[in-house]
């Protein structure tokens, strides 16, 4: 459903991203990993249609991304960005309701409100609905944002470091939600920092370093200490028994080499 070919983006004379290929099918969860400044967010912004690629092209549902209007695109793809800033005292319900925006033609119908309540229910956000969005904790705000994304009824979800600042319970809850959506046939692309969460939830992993793709494939074969050391410049150790999920822990040079 989402295809990128030889994607590159240049800001001034610096290539933030170059020569990246990827293909995402329906029902797939792709995790984008890499050190800070490796171009993860730039890639996501290119896939969201926010930035125009300097070279290469993105195809979304068999059509070049550039041919979509903002509204048409918003009916098919939803984005969770990193900023959680709200300029005015909206309630959580009003924020979740914003997800209906691309679908509204003229006046909204009771159905739009039913969908909003259903979305809030799915993320266990119903008790929050009358609270001011700005008064919510990080985890609660993320639930409401997730409801807003669900409410958009998109086929592709793009998530920019969704688990940042979340405690383990909220982080797992959020990723479980999007994993479930992938099982329902949606596409998910998530920029993640936590290698182990990526290993647990993703079907495929894209490893970026300095704007180039270092590796692209299933997490089992990609997430091994040698490759990670090359990408992050820190030694890694692999834990866990061979049959279960592997856990990778960065270990400082001094400790790793004895």
């Amino acid at each position, binding site marked *: 459903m989402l295809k990128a070919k030889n994607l590159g983006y240049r800001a001034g004379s610096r290539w933030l991203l170059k020569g990246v290929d990827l293909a995402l099918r329906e029902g797939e969860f792709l995790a984008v990993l890499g050190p800070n400044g490796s171009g993860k967010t730039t890639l996501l912004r290119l896939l969201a249609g926010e930035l125009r690629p300097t070279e290469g092209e993105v195809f979304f549902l068999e059509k070049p991304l550039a041919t979509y209007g*903002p*509204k048409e*695109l918003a009916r098919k793809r939803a984005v969770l960005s990193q*900023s959680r800033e709200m300029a*005015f005292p909206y309630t959580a319900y*009003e924020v979740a309701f914003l997800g209906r925006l691309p679908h509204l033609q003229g006046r909204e119908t009771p159905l739009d409100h039913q969908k909003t309540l259903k979305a809030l229910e799915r993320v266990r956000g119903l008790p929050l609905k009358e609270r001011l969005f700005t008064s919510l904790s990080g985890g609660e705000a993320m639930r409401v944002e997730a409801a807003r994304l669900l409410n958009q009824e998109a086929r592709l979800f793009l998530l920019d470091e969704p688990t940042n600042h979340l405690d383990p319970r909220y982080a797992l809850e959020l990723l479980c939600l999007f994993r479930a959506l992938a099982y329902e046939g949606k596409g998910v692309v998530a920029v993640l920092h936590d290698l182990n969460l990526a290993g647990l939830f993703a079907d495929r992993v894209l490893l970026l370093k300095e704007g180039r793709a270092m590796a692209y494939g299933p997490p089992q074969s990609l997430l091994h200490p040698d490759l990670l050391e090359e990408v992050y410049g820190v030694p890694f150790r692999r834990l866990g028994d061979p049959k279960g999920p592997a856990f990778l822990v960065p270990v400082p040079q001094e400790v790793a080499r004895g």
Partner: protein
Amino acid sequence: MVGTFPFRRYRQALLGLTLLLPFALLLGAGIGAYPIPPWAIPEILLKGEGVEYQVLTALRFPRVLGAGLVGGLLALAGAVLQGLFRNPLVDPGLIGVSSGAALGAALFIVLVPGAGVLETYALPLFAFLGGLLATLLLWRLAQTPLGVQVTVLLLAGIALNALVGAGIGLLTFLATEEELRSLTFWMLGGFSALTWRLLLAGLPLALLALALLLPLARGLNALALGEREAFHLGVDLERLKGRAVAGAAVGVGEAVAYGALLGLLGLVAPHLFRLLAGPDHRYLLPGAFFLGGSLAVLADLLARTLAAPAEIPVGVVTALLGGPFFLYLVLKHKREVYRA
């Protein structure tokens, strides 16, 4: 009752304000040097003759309707620009319209001395064009390959306001005694010069401003999350910015041309509505329009009755009432945020 809970307060507030405006208009039309009981006005209008009818139709109505329209447009422009800049402290003057308009008017007064009859129409026109030109200039300055940058717009607006202040200062210095008087008089503002003709001449522009601004509500709601988020929700950002700035420029330009920039009204009225009901722009935009209109009519009423037969400049009245209220808002905000 699915879906009604978040909107009940909005509907009640909007309903209350739609009733407040006609009430304020009747009050403003009735009270004055020749008092007419407001409740008798419909009857007098139906009769269609007599001194009271003359006073109402020739003097009071153009004035109260004009004041209502000016207040409504200023408040609406304020609400839209606060939404656009995602900042509740934005005043419609920030996009350069009011200072541009003031410079336009000052240029006309000083450089076209003794315009006489011409002045009634040419002065508002100069003010209006000055405002539009200033905004257009700011818009061009804020243009980048990635679209119009709102921060640049804001900063350039501050720079432009300072420059225009210098320009007006220079013109004041050059002006003769008489020009100085009419310049000061114009700057203070007032609705005493409003006539049916001026009102009707400006009506299409007022309608244009309404048509440009009112449909922006949903996009502004999405924009509260941020520019990128609004785009993710399907908002055509450049279109939204263009319409908001153009509509606000026409609306504020019109208000200045009608004779008054009501200090703080465009800033305070949207705030009041948010306090009454909430920030949803679908209700805020019409609500601010009705509230701003009512407040302007009442302020004008105070301006012409408090020191009768003399008239206090209405801008002074709104600033006197709006200033302390705004300070109260700031202090309340301080208490809530810093618990001090």
